């Protein structure tokens, strides 16, 4: 890649510039600031769309009474049951159980507190999911 060919497709990084390695006029490698590259932006956007789809799916299942609000907070934080289990110190099957409305409502205050702490929420906030798809 030549210095003049370093792409400047800003999208993801805000004010930040990443560094790329490119060749200058004399053929020597130099570090060049790069605002972003379209193919990388596309791949990144796709990852976020997939996360948003997970959140929307969780919300719709919560509305239909099939999942508990925990499923929403998990999706919003890009977590699987096994990853969240690592954070709260439970087994993945216990987390999956808490994703169901009835076991969720029977959960002890201590267990609620552990989940709430991971997401940086209060227990009251943990127990509700927004009515509509909130864009994250």
């Amino acid at each position, binding site marked *: *890649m030549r210095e003049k060919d370093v792409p400047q497709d800003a*999208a*993801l*990084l*805000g004010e*930040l*510039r*990443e*560094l*790329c*390695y*490119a*060749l200058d006029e004399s*053929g*020597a*490698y130099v*570090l060049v600031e*790069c605002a972003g*590259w*379209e*193919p*990388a932006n*596309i*791949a*990144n956007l*796709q*990852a*976020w769309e*997939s996360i948003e789809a997970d959140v929307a799916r969780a919300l719709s299942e919560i509305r239909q009474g099939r999942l508990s609000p925990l499923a929403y907070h998990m999706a919003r*934080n*890009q*977590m*699987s049951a096994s*990853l969240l289990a*690592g*954070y709260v110190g439970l087994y993945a099957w216990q987390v999956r159980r808490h994703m169901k409305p009835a076991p969720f409502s029977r959960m002890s205050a201590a267990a609620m507190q552990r989940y709430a702490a991971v997401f940086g929420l209060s227990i009251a906030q943990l127990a509700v999911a927004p009515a509509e798809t909130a864009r994250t």
Partner: protein
Amino acid sequence: MSVAFQHRQSAHCESGVTANLLTHHGLPLSEAMAFGIGSGLFFAYLPFIRLNGLPLTTFRSAPGRIFRRATARLGVAVTSVSFADPARGMAELDRLVAAGIPVGAQTGVYWLPYFPPALRFHFNAHNLVVYGREAGGYLISDPVIDHPVICPAADLERARFAKGPLAPRGKLYRIARMPETADLAPAIRESLRDVCRVMTRVPVPLIGVRGIRLLARSLESWPSRLGPRRATHYLGQVIRMQEEIGTGGGGFRFIFAAFLQEAASVLGDPRYLELSTCMTAIGDRWREFAAAGARLCKGRPEGGAGYADLAGILRDCAERESGLYQDIDRVVLDVRR
């Protein structure tokens, strides 16, 4: 309290941390040189390790290896600890910072508040240097950010003790003792031979050039095996691992080409410049793969480039890399004779 630590932005986190720590301890080193003598260049396709539910493709060696190998090859003594208990991990960090020692730390990026929001995924192989503490938090030199940042203690603790694949377990590492003299030339030769060995002669089909060919083969089967939508997600993940922040472009191939250029001047051997040119061309080919792949993800393959064409580019990369590693091996061994 803090120590005077010179922050330098770099393309990749771990090689940046390694270069900055060594420079701080009196051995000025570029990022590319740290990446090179740490044998950072790698390839592995590991479908059984899942990142966000998608198979892991990696273009660099496992977290911690670059620092460990680069320092070992220069005769630098290092210490490294990880922790089961976050409180003890933070206490140890405080102790080192209070003693005026800049410390490398492995973290996840999801919990780092200063990180660009668009890049905050559960990715645990990030590296940074902590070099001080103020009322507002820790002073951090994060190599992918252009200026030093302050991170609140609670957030840093979460990032250091992030869970999931490649969990950092609060890992801290630092330079314990510098050698009286450090000779780059033997370190460069050793690292080059190591890269060639790993990329061409490890008898595991997931690793090195064979790994690239395996990826090409699996990639062709994605659309029929996973359906078109899921296939684009798999493809997108490969592109992200190759091109998203921290690779210097072309899945680290350009950083390595820069290293080969530096090697040419350190060793006084112009043949390394030719090898560098060759590696640059391979990096450009990887970029073509990413560009064509992204068009496919967006659902508008210009000129009908499909998965078979992408696999073709990968096979070409594998072929060229295979030849290049043989050439590197030959050049390095010739010098030794």
